[in-house]
């Protein structure tokens, strides 16, 4: 039965993709991109990829759309027509597409259990996780422990993006609260923001520490935490938000998150194990795994939240 939903969602995605190609107005394209990533997030839910759906929605529909719109707000809205007819790109695209379709002919069928993907490493992860790591959410155990080094690389990628945006856009602190003319009429938004702000932060912490048992983890929590502050900045103006979390603190938080992660790894070495070995952190290996996973999720959450806010401040503070 899920095939039907799966096929319909893919159809909708395809229509949205074609619409994005044809649309001239960049604001429309940005909104369609937000819908595109929301649809792909719900497709991930249908395909049982729970953590990925959470991350795709938080990052795709949330942060990326805001960044795209902040950029389009600075540039001309209308997209000029390309000067030369797009024959060469069409040729390149059809050749690449044909190569890929040619490649799918020998692929295992969609969803059949006999595919090599499910035989080798995956069954070991599913079988060993309860014993060795004792965390129900196998994705978190693979993300944080079996392939924990990938996640360290990932945190470094996020840190690089933060440092890059810091280098490119820097930051301008807004002393005065110069808002649009409609400042008086924001009362409704402010009341709701004041009501929801603590709830969102609390929910971010829940997602952070619930990552072992359900969908969640460092990244999703970091993005939700940053979304909470973005809501605060929207309702009460960027100046107040920068007073609540000012920029030097963000730089420190971004750096401290990566250092926490690396420190857990080096701690493994100092206690005589290998790099990123959590078993030696505590006397009992499984508790060591829990401790290790908890600490690195915290480090990841801090860095991601700080970098999201650095990027948001960088883009929005350039507007006026």
């Amino acid at each position: 039965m899920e095939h039907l939903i799966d096929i319909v969602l893919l159809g909708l995605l395809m229509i949205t993709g074609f619409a994005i190609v044809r649309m001239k107005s960049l604001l429309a394209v940005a909104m369609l991109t937000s819908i595109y990533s929301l649809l792909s997030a719900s497709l991930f839910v249908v395909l049982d990829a729970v953590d990925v759906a959470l991350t795709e929605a938080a990052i795709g529909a949330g942060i990326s759309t805001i960044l795209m719109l902040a950029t389009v707000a600075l540039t001309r809205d209308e997209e000029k027509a390309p000067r030369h007819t797009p024959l060469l790109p069409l040729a390149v695209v059809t050749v690449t597409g044909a190569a890929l379709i040619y490649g799918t002919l020998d692929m295992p069928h969609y969803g059949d259990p006999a595919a090599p993907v499910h035989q080798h490493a995956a069954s070991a992860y599913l079988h060993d996780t309860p014993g060795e790591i004792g965390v129900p959410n196998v994705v978190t155990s693979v993300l944080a422990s079996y392939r924990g080094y990938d996640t360290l690389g990932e945190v470094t990628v996020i840190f690089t993006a933060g440092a890059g945006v810091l280098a490119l856009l820097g930051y301008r602190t807004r002393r005065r609260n110069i808002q649009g003319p409609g400042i008086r009429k924001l009362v409704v938004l402010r009341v709701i923001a004041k009501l929801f702000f603590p709830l969102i932060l609390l929910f971010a912490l829940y997602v952070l520490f619930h990552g072992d048992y359900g969908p969640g983890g460092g990244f999703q929590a970091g993005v939700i935490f940053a979304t909470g502050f973005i809501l605060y900045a929207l309702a009460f103006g960027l100046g107040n938000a920068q007073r609540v979390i000012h920029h030097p603190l963000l730089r420190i938080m971004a750096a401290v998150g990566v250092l926490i992660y690396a420190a857990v790894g080096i701690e493994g070495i100092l206690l005589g194990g290998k790099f990123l070995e959590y078993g030696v952190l505590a006397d009992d290996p499984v508790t060591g795994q829990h401790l290790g996973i908890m600490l690195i999720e915290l480090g990841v959450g801090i860095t991601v939240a700080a970098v999201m806010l650095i990027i948001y401040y960088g883009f929005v503070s350039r507007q006026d």
Partner: protein
Amino acid sequence: MLLSNLPALQVVIPLVSAPVCLLLRNPRHAWACALIISWLVLAMALLLLQQVYTLGTISYAIGAWATPWGIEYRIDMAGALMILIIATVGAVTMPYAWRNIQHELHRKHTGVYYTCYLLCLTGLLGIVVTGDAFNLFVFLEISSLSSYVLISLGPSRRALTAAYQYLVMGTIGATFILIGIGLLYMMTGTLNMQDISQRLPEVADTRTIRVAFAFVTVGVSIKLALFPLHIWLPNAYTYAPSVVSAFMAATATKVGVYVLLRFFFTLFGLQFSFNAMHVGEILMLLAVAAILIASLVAIFQDNVKRMLAYSSVAQIGYIILGISLATTAGVSAGMLHLFNHAMIKGALFMAMGCIFLRLGSVEIHNMHGLARQMPWTMAAFVAGGLSLIGVPLTAGFISKWYLVNAALTDGYWPLAVLILVSSLLALIYIWRVVEAAYFHLPGADMHKVREAPASMLIPTWLLIGVNLYVGLDAGLITNIAQQGAASLLGQALQ
């Protein structure tokens, strides 16, 4: 305890130092921290080389998980050579960077520059050391992202468009690599390179693996600027700050070549990639095209940094030519040229940085009579140029000699002729610069130009010294290159 964990520390130390550099407010402290870390990385690289030299291939399981489940670091002689190149160039360009950054970068960028530089160093080291396909993609992204930022810090506004163009092409390349790795994982079920190479023969003739091979080759070719896909390189190296051009020219494309070697020989295996897919002939054709066309274009450039960028594309053509022969002699000649070219191009770009500092421009028509004012810098440029051409007693000659030797043993005598002819092309464009600097009457305000500061001259001459040393006694490096080639091909021949 330190020695046993050396492979991991080699990447983790610069990775940890990058956030520390961001925390240091004062740019001078950040520079000092980056300097210490670069020299520490060089020391560790030498230690690692010695370990690999004695113990053979080192395997280090991260997190103490067995190989197919956890991520494994696997360093053989080829990897150790690459770490040596990256660490040497990094350690040499760091003292050079202080004055150059002060001069070319905007005041507020000097603090963040060192963080991005250390991240690029981490990414490059991470690519070379890892034995896991997806981990290679992650560190490839780290080094690419930080190099986009480094390029965009250039003095002129065109650095931004150059960085943007490199970002778009680099991301397409990285996504192609991701598609290739995904298809490989779909057919073999693991991500560890050794595991994939063992599981590949059963599924080798399926169409999916051929498409995965094609996508990975195209993706990596974009990263190493192989001829038709090199469009991003000239702008990137011309408008980037000089120290970034020097560091990138000497390491970024070289790591791309290493990734190509790793995929061809370790992952897909010699039989599949060269006999079944005939990639050798395609690469040879592209290499010949790269050498000829890039050298010709370099001759007509007025901006010397752009000329050196096109000459880099030509030199990569030489390296790929060596690899396309798929024999131990050919691959070791390619790796030898990889090392020599890294040293030569690093020195040449640093010399241009000194000229840009004093003259404010790198155009040939502004450099008339420069030799009298900046004798040491121009002497370094000439020495580097000679090595680029392949004059005896320089490193360039050694690697060209082995390339010609490898081509002749395989019976490709036209390739040997091509290598000699293209050296003449290199002579022409180097001569244009030398002629302008030495044999033209100095321009109006040339007398005000002073010699470059010692902090920039010594690193340039250090690299030239390495060049000349390899030219005289090539024993050590050729030995390492041959062992590297043997370990790469050795894995393939098993």
